[in-house]
């Protein structure tokens, strides 16, 4: 059973404008690889050169923060919803 991946914000330009898509895989890494096959370049928007989640990308698998469940090794149960949310941050200036 596929999982639903939702992409609010700027990441949707990496999926041809889709904000919601289905993907298959047992871990977050598998899910990202599955989307990468259909939308080349997606992986690089989510993961850094070392294959870790980029600092400004938050991923929730259901209610769980993927970082607290092993990062890209986090298991993704069948039928779950994966939300990929770029951080909302900024500010006047660094000190």
């Amino acid at each position, binding site marked *: 059973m596929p999982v639903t991946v939702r992409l609010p*914000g700027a990441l949707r330009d990496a999926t041809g404008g889709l904000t919601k898509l289905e993907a298959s895989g047992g871990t977050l890494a598998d899910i990202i690889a599955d989307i990468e096959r259909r939308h080349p370049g997606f992986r690089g928007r989510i993961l850094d050169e070392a294959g870790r989640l980029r600092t*400004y990308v938050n991923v929730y698998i259901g209610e769980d*923060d993927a970082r607290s469940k092993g990062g890209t090794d986090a298991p993704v149960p069948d039928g779950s919803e994966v939300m990929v*949310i*770029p951080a*909302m941050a900024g*500010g*006047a*200036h*660094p000190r």
Partner: protein
Amino acid sequence: MRSGTASVAESFALARELRERIVAHARESAPNEACGLLAGRSGGPARVIRCANVHDTPTTRYRIDPREQLRAFREMDDRSEELVAIYHSHPASQPYPSPTDRAESHYPDAVYLLVSLRTAEPEVRGFRIDDDLVREVQILER
């Protein structure tokens, strides 16, 4: 077709009540930066969602609590709303996107509203930020 036509600046209708809520949030949070979202339908903001600033240096930086973001996105989905704007305050500086604001913006479809408290009368300005491109959006109070 574009040549010869005047460029029309984008405008953004912001109800006085919503503006007042954002300014009130900025004042309550000072000297820290306040942050939050505006949700609505068909591009028009209908309600303010206050969020917690969880940045370690909240006087000059903001970071919206990611869990509140998650909750807000789900709630907007349930209500058939969209993210219309992201606001934050600059307690002591101008209401213009700083280099940090530009570097950390990831929502080109949302208007970034900035509230400045540097003067007695708060200033609110709106911008689109797409990579390093910043375009001001004219705010129409209604």
